[in-house]
């Protein structure tokens, strides 16, 4: 590739021989690219992975999971849990009924009933509760709950709420009896306000989701093509005929690389668009909320993100193609590529938890991580142009290096006829 770039530079400078070499290589690259892309379009499996799967999975992931979570929360908040009450405290129980925080029930073995999930919590009241309260002593009540059951955890919160309200009412009565204003117990009252705009909140949501999905689909989108175009050619017995034709190994690899890259970038675009559409229009509809998400990306940001995603996908495509060239069969190629998938997705998941790396220049020259941190900066609107340039140049360098590796492998007898 470096030779080709040099030849192009010399050609542009007027060197006829270099010009004709560049034109010839360009025609070969085009021929390989067109053929590989045509075959990919006729392969239902790659189309399914590239377009259909991301288009369907993204709305499910971005809306389906929050929807299920919200449904559970809604159920918990609208139903009144049954709490077993052991002991007598008429005023407290009366407050439970009137506040509708929970429904007190009586049961013989309350702990067993809790374990069997017949009740969601147990409130244990000491025998002389009313007397102790009347004598202004401190009363200890017990709450039993099951931490492994979210509904029980919610019921516990309601019992705690009731005890707190009851305590406040008792305190207020005692203070009034002593001619003290209950408000005197709260000399400072806090009034809080969130200054983040809708766009910033959406940016944070996107920053936590997008890098992960871009990483995932940059690998998955091109995987079947990368496997098919090298290891698949070995298995079908078409590689030898291809290598016997005049095109240089450089031209063959570049044509194949560009078609894998097209699939990879295509899948990333489908994923990002499907996610934005589902968040923007599906969010208020599916989640029954009045909260609108401003998930539009400014054109400039979207363009820069696409450029960074293309460079990242280029590295992934070239590495996948190299592994496929090295593999003896498509099965072996898949075995080589699977760890690459995890090596990419895990850093994407880690990025929100290592934000302190964001300030280090070294982060922006680290392959893979540099792209994820750049996406994050772009989505949060905290772009540092120096970081962006560093990430772009280093990503392009790594991608070029990986393409050179693929060319080197394609030129080795021991790799082509590896048995």
């Amino acid at each position, binding site marked *: 590739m470096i030779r080709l770039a040099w030849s192009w530079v010399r050609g542009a400078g007027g060197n006829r021989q270099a010009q004709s070499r560049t034109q*010839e290589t360009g*025609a*070969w690259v085009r*021929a*390989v690219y067109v*053929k590989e892309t*045509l*075959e990919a379009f*006729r*392969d239902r499996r790659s189309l399914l992975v590239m377009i259909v799967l991301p288009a369907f999975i993204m709305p499910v992931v971005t809306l389906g999971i929050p929807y299920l979570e919200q449904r559970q929360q809604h159920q918990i908040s609208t139903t009144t849990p049954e709490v077993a009450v052991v002991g007598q405290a008429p005023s407290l129980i009366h407050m439970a009924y009137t506040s509708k925080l929970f429904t007190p029930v009586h049961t013989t073995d309350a702990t067993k009933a809790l374990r069997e999930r017949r009740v969601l919590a147990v409130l244990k009241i000491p025998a002389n509760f009313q007397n102790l309260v009347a004598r202004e002593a401190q009363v200890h009540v017990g709450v039993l709950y099951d931490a492994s059951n979210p509904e029980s955890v919610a019921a516990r919160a309601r019992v705690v709420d009731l005890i707190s309200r009851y305590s406040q009412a008792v305190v207020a009565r005692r203070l009034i009896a002593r001619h003290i204003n209950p408000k005197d117990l709260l000399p400072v009252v806090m009034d809080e306000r969130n200054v983040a705009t809708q766009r910033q909140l959406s940016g944070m949501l996107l920053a936590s989701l997008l890098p992960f999905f871009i990483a995932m689909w940059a690998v998955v989108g091109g995987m079947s093509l990368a496997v098919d175009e090298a290891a698949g050619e070995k298995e*079908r*017995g*078409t590689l*030898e*005929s*291809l*290598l*016997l*034709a*005049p*095109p*240089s190994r450089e031209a063959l690899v570049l044509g194949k690389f560009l078609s894998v890259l097209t699939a990879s970038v295509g899948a990333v675009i489908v994923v990002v668009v499907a996610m934005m559409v589902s968040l923007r229009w599906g969010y208020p509809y599916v989640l029954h909320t009045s909260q609108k998400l401003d998930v539009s990306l400014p054109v400039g940001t979207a363009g820069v993100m696409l450029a960074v995603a293309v460079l990242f996908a280029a590295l992934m495509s070239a590495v996948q193609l190299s592994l496929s060239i090295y593999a003896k069969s498509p099965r072996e190629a898949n075995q080589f590529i699977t760890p690459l998938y995890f090596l990419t997705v895990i850093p994407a998941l880690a990025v929100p938890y290592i934000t302190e790396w964001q300030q280090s220049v070294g982060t922006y020259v680290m392959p893979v991580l540099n792209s994820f941190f750049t996406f994050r900066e772009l989505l949060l609107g905290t772009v540092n142009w120096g970081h962006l340039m560093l990430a772009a140049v280093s990503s392009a360098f790594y991608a070029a290096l990986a393409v050179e590796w693929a060319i080197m492998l394609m030129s080795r*007898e021991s790799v*082509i*006829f590896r048995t």
Partner: protein
Amino acid sequence: MRLLVEARNLQKHFRSYHAVRGVSFSCYAGEVFGLLGPNGAGKTTTIRLLTTILRPTSGTARIAGHDVVRQPAEVRRSIGVLPENAGVYGRLTGREAIRYAGRLYGLAPDALERRIVEIADALELTEHLDRLTDTFSKGMKQKINVARALIHDPPVVFLDEPTSGLDVISARSVRDFVLRFKAEGRCVILSTHMMEEAERLCDRVAIIAGGRIRAEGDLAALKAETGKDLEEIFMTMVEQSVVR
């Protein structure tokens, strides 16, 4: 006659394995030269050395006047190759598969389309040209590979076990192409382990065993010299190579 293939003391090592141990022969335009030998004798490696896909450890070869090591690009433009067990691109039609080969050989679009029609006609492929090759029989797939190998009208043709795995009718059809190539003045190098095929098609043969040529020459002369038929000569040579 024009000398088109000239191999001189070709050798190839794969780590400790010495696959080809000094193969030399020549082949001329309008001639069918047979490389005869059992499986693993070194026939395919010899063809791969001559077609530039492998680089010889030592020795030289010239194809149509071009050196296989120093001028691989020129050699590739002068040869058409049908590798052993060659496959097809199943999701391309016959026409697309042949067109792809033509583009790789740099044929101009108009000339390429004319050549596809001409070659499909010669190989009786015309009515199947626009079907996906996945739906083709093995014999039809082999015809597509022959068409791909000849799209640029090369003077030298290498056929590595071209009838292997084909039914009787398809094998006969491939043998007819070989004779046609010869009639067209091409130089054909044919590797086979089938005596009958060699006797029917080859003007001269080289018997390869253990990476070496054990006997070489005109079929009639070989028979006259040894007083044996080709199969007996072949067996004798192979047995001798095992003893050595």
